[in-house]
């Protein structure tokens, strides 16, 4: 088991290295907007673009051999010198540090609520499958997944924001800073974004946990436990939940990241939240290479790390796992 974990940790580092190298390759291969801009300004003021290009390459060490650049790049990455973001007029690391809080403030509640409520509902409907409760839960779940969240968000803004004026129509970033992240005003302006994002992620958690729990319910050991007269409560919590948690945790990081990335870009655009989604979207559209790079790497690292945790949780949770051949 220790060996297995050690191997997984090592793999994490290898994976990060691969990710870094791949992105280096991508950057080296793609045209450099900075260089284009530099030559453009030269052309605009009537200087020789060729010369400016050389100067730019020299200034940015592009005239060095690839190995040298690769080495510098790796050193910069490891020392967190991730460059300057043109689209935000900020260094990349502070940009991420600024933005992540705005995403986390709605992402964490969504994560917690969708996990607790989603698992609860999922287990409950698995416990009483094919009943009215189950069907209602199914419908609510499918409803949440099926409704296009951007459309839902816009309708909510018009109905609750403009017509009724119950909630703010957009997110004011001054409020958490002046009144605190947990202030009433901040929570109020998070109601809509959280609601919209919850519809989708809650549903996923619920459907997934129901399916997993159903599988486990039929498993031999549950049947044995049932036969042995274990109470229903104990059966659900101890046996089913524990076993269902195993496969659940594996898809957890991946699927949640997917929901957040697609969800947060849309949510943050609509509600004007200056978080990671909006930042990444703008970086892509404005071709802000260092920022695109950084956000990609951060997610990949998060995912790799999440995976590591999952795998470790896995060996601890499931006593039957065989790590002999790993």
């Amino acid at each position, binding site marked *: 088991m220790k060996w297995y974990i050690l191997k997984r940790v090592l793999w994490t580092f290898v994976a990060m290295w691969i990710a870094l190298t791949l992105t280096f390759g991508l950057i080296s291969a793609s045209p450099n907007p900075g260089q284009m801009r530099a030559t453009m300004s030269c052309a*605009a003021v009537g200087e020789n673009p060729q010369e400016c290009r050389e100067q730019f390459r020299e200034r940015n060490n592009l005239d060095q051999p690839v190995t040298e650049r690769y080495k510098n790049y790796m050193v910069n990455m490891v020392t967190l010198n991730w460059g300057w973001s043109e689209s935000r007029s900020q260094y990349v690391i502070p940009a991420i540090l600024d933005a992540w809080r705005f995403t986390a403030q709605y992402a964490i509640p969504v994560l917690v609520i969708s996990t607790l409520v989603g698992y609860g509902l999922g287990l409950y409907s698995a416990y009483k499958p094919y009943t009215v409760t189950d069907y209602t839960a199914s419908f609510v779940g499918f409803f949440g997944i099926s409704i296009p969240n951007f459309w839902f968000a816009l309708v909510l803004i018009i109905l609750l924001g403009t017509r009724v004026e119950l909630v703010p129509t957009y997110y004011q970033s001054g409020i958490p800073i002046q009144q605190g992240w947990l202030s009433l005003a901040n929570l109020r302006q998070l109601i809509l974004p959280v609601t919209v994002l919850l519809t989708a992620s809650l549903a996923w958690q619920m459907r997934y946990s129901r399916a997993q729990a159903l599988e486990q319910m039929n498993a031999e050991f549950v049947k044995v436990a049932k036969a042995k007269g274990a109470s229903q409560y104990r059966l659900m919590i101890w046996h089913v939940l524990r076993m269902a948690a195993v496969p659940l945790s594996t898809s957890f990081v991946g699927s949640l990241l997917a929901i957040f990335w697609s969800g947060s870009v849309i949510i943050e655009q609509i509600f004007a939240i200056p978080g990671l989604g909006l930042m990444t979207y703008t970086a892509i559209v404005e071709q802000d290479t260092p920022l695109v790079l950084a956000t990609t790497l951060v997610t990949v690292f998060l995912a790799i790390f999440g995976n590591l945790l999952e795998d470790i949780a896995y060996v601890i949770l499931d006593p039957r796992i065989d790590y002999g051949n790993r």
Partner: protein
Amino acid sequence: MSNDSEPTGQVDQSERRRFLTYLSATGVVAGLAGCSSSGESTETAAATASETAVQTTEDPLESTPTPTETEQSIPEGGVFKEATTGTTNGLNAFRIGDGETSDRVEQVMDGGFARKGEAYEDIFPMWFEDFTVSDDLTQVEVTLRDNLQFGNGYGQVTAETYIWNVENLWTADWTSFTYSYLFSVGKDNEPIDFEKVDDLTIRMTVPEPRPFFPYEEPLGGMFPLPRELAQPYVDDQNVEGLVKDEEVMRSTFNGNLGPWDLVRWSQQSVMEFERADDYYLRKWAEEDDRVPDAYAEAPFFDEYHIQYFQKQSTARQALKAGEIDRVGIPSNKVANWQGREDTTLYENPFVSFSSYLGINQRANGWDQLRNKKVRYALSHVYHNEFVATNILSGHAGVQNTLHPKWGPYYPDDAVSFDGSLDEARRLLEEGTSSDYGYSGDTFVGPDGEQVELTLVYVSDETDDLRAAYLKKRLGKVGIALNTTTTSWTSMLGNYFRTNNPAEGVSEGSVGYGSDNAHPSTYNYGPWDKAVSAKPWDLMLTLGFSYGPLTPAGTVTSLFGERENFNAYGFTPDRDLVGMREEARTAESIETARETITEMLRYLSEERPVVFESNPINYTAYRDDVAGLPNSPAASYFVDQNHDVMYFSDGKPGR
């Protein structure tokens, strides 16, 4: 790219004092505009055409139906919130490359003066107490006010400050300052001479009389940096360090130089300003007759917020809900905002932007487009009056040359077209070479197949309509149209930039003449040698913004054979550069006018592109915002200046 599928209206609260020619997307005119303009902002810094800058606009005097009663009657207080979809690089006084950044820097620093009219001396004096033009039109003398103070202990702004900035920053090679070209004039880039007359007076001298020099003089629009702040960077020639310096980037050295101070900037969210306590102009409201009395107390809001929205539609919802006080309204939404009780709609017909249908006359476009009659036919097919009336719902002014009808140089005899399809068919048959012709209703080429053209544009609601209109109309004259939509960046990079060799031309000989000159990447060489990466025939979305007082520079840079922005490959048979120089060195503006009008008339006759229209801008306000100028704006120089606006009850209605 335009990600909001609607044209972005613009607030345009303070038409920039500095009118630089720049590429822009239709609907994002004033640079207040979502990601089209953001894509543009990176480009414009570089792509600013030289010599078309002009100082103009803004007349807080006229713009304010200034409460003539006593100042006490104006209620103070409240937070004025404005929505924008444009992004910015902060308040970097040294790296202003786009209108959005320029607008914002002007909140914290006034600049020299604002123009109130065409006459040289018709100005609203701000930092410059005096602005004097010598009779022989070779000298401009400016005198600074005596109470201009930088903040952070950097001392007073004096003539010396300006001279030091000119010598060490604005004209220095290592800074690659965006507007360094403003500091020289003429074909040979002769430097302007700056001299210090006394502590507060600077004299600028040009070698020969230039009637447009007073409009184009560089100092009025510049924001000098304190010497002590910039000196270390100058010593190291460290431009990266200079533009990334916190003080420079946020203009926190602004002292008493502007009506507002920046308090907080949250990227991609909000920029918050608070009323400056020590605004220098207050003193002059009493002492200088040219400064309205309202400035003794202005601004009246406690805070001014520029809130960023990614989606225009959300910004409008926020205005309805009363959470925003000012937002731009795109032309196709105007009707929804007329006659509302809780909002006021302000109309500004004086927008200096031309939209048109671009025509590729380079080697990778349809070769017949080089024939004038074919371009005439296209002008019939893509009928500008129909577009203005039906697609832009009348919220635009038709133009038949690269100048608005309200501009001072619009030729009375500009060539116009009536949109007749029969005429278009006739012109097509006449204008194309003999191997083209009609086969039934189809216009066929030498290979016997229907002529097919490619239109490229950035998709949004109005441009989709323009494209659909063009396709329909071309279909009626027997030509097929393929439409390609792309992003703004990709349109500039793959279609507008022409740094690729045409078929059969070797990489090294793409440029002009024996010295293989490349005026810019947008005009990398002659039409038959340099072409764009991807072929195209017609182009929408991309238009041009310019200073209406000095259009000669824009005309030349767009359509002069070897000029920066002639990506169209148009080859004029008249010497546009020569005409521009003639106008610029004329004895007076009156003599220059004739030449400029002639240039515009020539364009209208040549139709290097199908001229379309200039937009009318609309801005919606909450009804409790008072102090607006009369709508529609009375002239180009009227400005929606929030410095003199106030909430009628002293606080926002929320």
